[in-house]
């Protein structure tokens, strides 16, 4: 396939671009293989530089000889293009539609993007699992790094290396994998250094209607617990749903076969209901004419904040089991690639201060979302506006980011990064110039040579000048667990994301800049400048004296 085949009209002049909150501009519209450009006059400023992959829905309206195209983007921005000429309008619209729905990973922009300031290999191997394993092995010898999945044959959605109990051999792992959906056998997700408890994650066991058992799986989970020790299995499905899963070959760990484990069911929404919740919330947010009652009603019926509360509560429960009850925790739902990761990743942000730094958080995302096999390509194919028939889209990653944002509101000094990083991660997960969120798992990434042929987002974000923008000026290291309140009064709508393009934020931005200024002024350089000013006034005087002399 050639991109040029998809582009029916490459340039149109005299196009009017309008976007909420900004003055409309007129200029020349230009479509390239990956971008939509609008420049206000020949050789003039580029007013719009939109990654076509970012377009979620294209709506066209024809009036007489001209037409209007509304572009609803995955980052929730809405743009309008007034295009003279009916044919041009239709051509542009269908070109954008075709280009934005190219599904082949290797055709995507990251494979073509070559910024001069970055090197291709930079950032790709910044967070190897080996490094995390070394941290753990310095404190305990109960775990080992297994390469049983070296060729992705044991579990296609796991990375080549996983951390498993030292007492369990690779052969047993292979057998246990056959007893878990998608081969996702229990692996270590997090080691809590404070009391050396661990959190594991997996997919559901394939108990099925005949109550199948697997000795290797039972031993695997058994060896983790000492005699008399308890473990908690946090199942992210309802007890009912877990039971029903047996009919389709899935199920749960029965008490009789896993005597030391107690199951806790905490149903978390995923899949289509979550995607619909997202769409409903965005729809409510984009209607400023809603009366107060209608607004609250729509906010309620979207159920988004309920999902936020449920995710936070479940993560807190997992964290509490580890930190307070000093118990081992296993988290799984069905496939173990969605709500499971939401809970394990969030629990770590709550428990571990090292996950709350800018770089530590990236490491967490890499370990618990990207390498752990959250299917980003499927889940983030479309955002809230798409009219396309939904396949497997669901905003689990966004829900995670929202929960982290809630934490940052309740503990404004404990996260090293600010809202900007979270927004940028959301944008890049849905449409990006970088390869970090491409594909569904490490196996696919390896097949597509993502790490060889695209740039890593981390390389970009960790450039000093970018980092500066992402840091939270109020941050100060907090070694404690941050237990959030999950009362509905404490859960807020993430206005910075859902109303980013809708609410005027100038005053809030200015206030934030002022906070930044105050903090900077308070830091050492300010105190130094005190000295400078004083010695200045002294030397001025001296100089004056000398001149006089």
């Amino acid at each position, binding site marked *: 396939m050639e991109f040029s085949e998809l582009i029916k009209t490459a340039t149109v002049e005299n196009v009017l671009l309008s976007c909420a909150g900004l003055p409309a501009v007129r200029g020349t519209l230009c479509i390239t293989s990956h971008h939509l450009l609008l420049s206000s006059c020949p050789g003039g400023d580029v007013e719009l530089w939109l990654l076509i992959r970012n377009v979620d829905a294209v709506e066209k309206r024809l009036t007489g000889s001209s037409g209007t195209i509304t572009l609803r983007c995955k980052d929730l921005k809405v743009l309008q293009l007034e295009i003279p000429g009916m044919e041009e309008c239709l051509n542009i619209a269908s070109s954008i539609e075709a280009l934005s729905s190219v599904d082949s990973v290797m055709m995507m922009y990251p494979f073509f993007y070559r910024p001069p300031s970055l090197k291709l290999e930079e950032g790709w191997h910044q967070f190897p699992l080996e490094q995390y394993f070394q941290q753990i092995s310095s404190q305990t010898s109960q775990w080992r790094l297994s390469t049983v999945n070296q060729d992705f044959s044991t579990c296609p959605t796991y990375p080549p290396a996983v951390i498993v109990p030292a007492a369990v051999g690779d052969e047993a792992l292979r057998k246990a994998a056959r007893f878990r959906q998608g081969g996702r056998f229990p692996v270590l997700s997090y080691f809590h250094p404070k009391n050396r408890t661990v959190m594991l994650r997996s997919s559901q066991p394939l108990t099925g209607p005949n109550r199948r058992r697997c000795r290797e799986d039972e031993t695997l989970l058994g060896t983790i617990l000492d005699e008399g020790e*308890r473990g908690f299995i946090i199942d992210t499905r309802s007890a009912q749903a877990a039971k029903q899963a047996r009919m389709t070959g899935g199920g749960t760990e029965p008490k009789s076969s896993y005597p030391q484990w107690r199951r*806790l069911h905490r149903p978390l929404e995923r899949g289509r209901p979550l995607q619909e919740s997202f769409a409903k919330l965005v729809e409510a947010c984009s209607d*400023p004419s*809603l*009366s*107060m*009652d209608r*607004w*609250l*009603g729509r*906010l*309620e019926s979207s159920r988004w904040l*309920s999902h*936020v509360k449920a995710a936070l*509560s*479940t993560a*807190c*429960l997992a964290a*509490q089991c580890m930190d*307070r*009850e000093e118990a081992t925790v296993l988290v799984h739902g069905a496939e173990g690639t969605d709500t499971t990761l939401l809970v394990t990743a969030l629990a770590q942000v709550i428990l571990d201060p090292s996950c709350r730094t800018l770089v530590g958080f990236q490491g967490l995302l890499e370990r618990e979302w990207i390498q752990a096999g959250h299917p980003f390509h499927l889940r983030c194919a479309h955002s809230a506006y798409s009219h396309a028939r939904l396949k497997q889209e669901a905003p689990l990653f966004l829900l995670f980011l929202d929960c982290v944002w809630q934490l940052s509101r*309740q*503990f*404004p*000094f*404990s996260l090293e990064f600010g809202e900007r990083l979270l927004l940028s991660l959301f944008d890049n997960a849905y449409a990006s110039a970088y390869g970090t969120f491409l594909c569904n798992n490490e196996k696919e990434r390896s097949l597509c040579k993502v790490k060889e042929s695209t740039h890593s987002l981390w390389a970009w974000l960790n450039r000093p000048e970018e980092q500066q923008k992402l840091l939270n000026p*109020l941050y*100060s*290291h*907090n*070694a*404690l*667990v*941050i*237990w*959030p*309140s999950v*009362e*509905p*009064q404490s859960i807020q709508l993430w206005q910075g994301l859902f109303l980013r393009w809708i*609410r*005027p934020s100038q*005053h809030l931005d*200015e*206030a934030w800049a*002022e*906070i930044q200024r*105050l*903090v900077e*002024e*308070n830091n050492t350089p*300010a*105190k130094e400048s*005190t000295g400078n000013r*004083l010695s200045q*006034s*002294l030397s001025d*005087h*001296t100089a004056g*004296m000398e001149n006089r002399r």
Partner: protein
Amino acid sequence: MEHIRTTKVEQVKLLDRFSTSNKSVTGTLYLTATHLLFIDSSQKETWILHHHIAAVEKLPLTTSGCPLVIQCKNFRIVHFVVPRERDCHDIYNSLLQLSKTAKYEELYAFSYNPKQNESEQVKGWQLIDLAEEYKRMGVPNAYWQLSDANRDYKICETYPRELYVPRTASKPIIVGSSKFRSKGRFPVLSYYHKNKEAAICRCSQPLSGFSARCLEDEHMLQAISKANPSNRYMYVMDTRPKLNAMANRAAGKGYENEDNYSNIRFQFVGIENIHVMRSSLQKLLEVSGTRGLSVNDFLSGLENSGWLRHIKAVVDAAVFLVKAIAMESASVLVHCSDGWDRTSQVCSLGALLLDSYYRTIKGFMVLIEKDWISFGHKFSDRCCQLDGDPKEISPVFTQFLECVWNLTEQFPQAFEYNEVFLLQIHEHVHSCQFGNFLGNCEKEREELKVKEKTYSLWPFLLAEQKKYRNPLYNPDFLPELSLLEPNTVSFNFKFWRNMYHQFDRSMHPRQSVLNLIMNLSEQNKQLEEDIKELEAKIKQRNGQLDVVLVKEHQQSAHPAPVALKTPPCFKKEQPPIPGNETVRTIEGSNTADNRYSELVSEFSKAEPAVVSLEYGVARMTC
């Protein structure tokens, strides 16, 4: 005090309202003439002013004792468990008596003694001078004058003595107009906008019925519109819903007929009455007070209470008002029924949007004194200072504060004061500790001799204004007298957690940005002052040196090298800057405070041997 039978009860438990595990602290309960005091085992004191108590309830006896629930007007709810029923009964009866006062003279303000001498007391009352305020606005001037018509409260008992009216409104017009207005509250000036030469005026509803007219009242309105040289028409805003206003016509009241008044543009803005507001707040408190609510129950409860809809309606009305003034230079007359509730809300909020002075600490005090206190908002009735008609109670002033809070959220740099200031004012509107809010109008306060017998709140707030200052305040945020234009889209109005859950610490962010920023800016100011001080010292020293040098110059050809010495002022120790740990303490960061602990604690009960949960308050030192 004859009402107090038991002054001290030991072994009383104070339950945490939002804790699932029925967490409690044990301590001693004391009953004094003015306060209920609880001191827990860690010596933490909880003071509750009797006047703050809105309701006391005795719940059915339990195995651990007799539960006593106290609801306060500042939205604090405390839940005690008293071991013996007789003690509980005594305290219950005493509180019932003590929280309901029959006479003004028994209110706390008349016994409160802050150790000020008489001249300080007098000075305190002079701090806010409304005559000065009208002068600041630019009246009297060519169009507006001070009227002495109400000097002896003869025309309107609930208005202040000093009122500003159009110069062309003669006394007969005033008298005639007042007879045609409910409670005699004729149109008077509330705010004058210097640049636009437009005025906000206020009054009560006309006694128009279905067809009555009053020429004087028509003249009065004409005088107001003529007092504005830049615009010929004026707006009359009836802040009530149209239906309510029409219903009033049957009772001989109503609203202005546009045909009878020349050049008026009449507008309803639909703010509900005090009864609707009272029950709306009641519903809101029921929702926010429920334990373990789901997000959806909370949101639907919030919606059903209608509270935020009412807040939005008030702000919308104020926005309508200021647009007329700022965009059209038109004067606006605002009224509701009696002109002391919704009218006060809309006039004061409008002035706050128009004039940055009211966004300063002192200016806000002036605004409250002017539009609420002097124009006779019935604080006594609305806040239930005396045991009276429960139908008169209404959170009208609370709504005003909440509107202001919503504006501060939208414009973080436009206000000199912070949220704590608003909460503190709310606290004292109900505390009856200071004389400002006692009674229903100026006349009543004069009769009570509040200025001699009680103290004014404002000097106390001003003295501790450091606490109330918004560290992000930028006085040049907008040019003077330029309009603050809030966005009133629904999503801009939020539930005011710090008001309704002020005392439920577990629900708050565990780290306060406001406190941190306040400390930072305080430290920065301190540094800045140190620099100035040091610079002054250097200057002074250098000045001395100059003199010496010049002298030396005259005397000797070889002066000693002076500037190379280290100036001693450099050795001055920096004032110790409070370390971060004082600033960054997280309160209540404890799993036990939170809902998610529920299951584990239930689960733990089965196997108690394994459980050793520490419920200490996590403290962070960094």
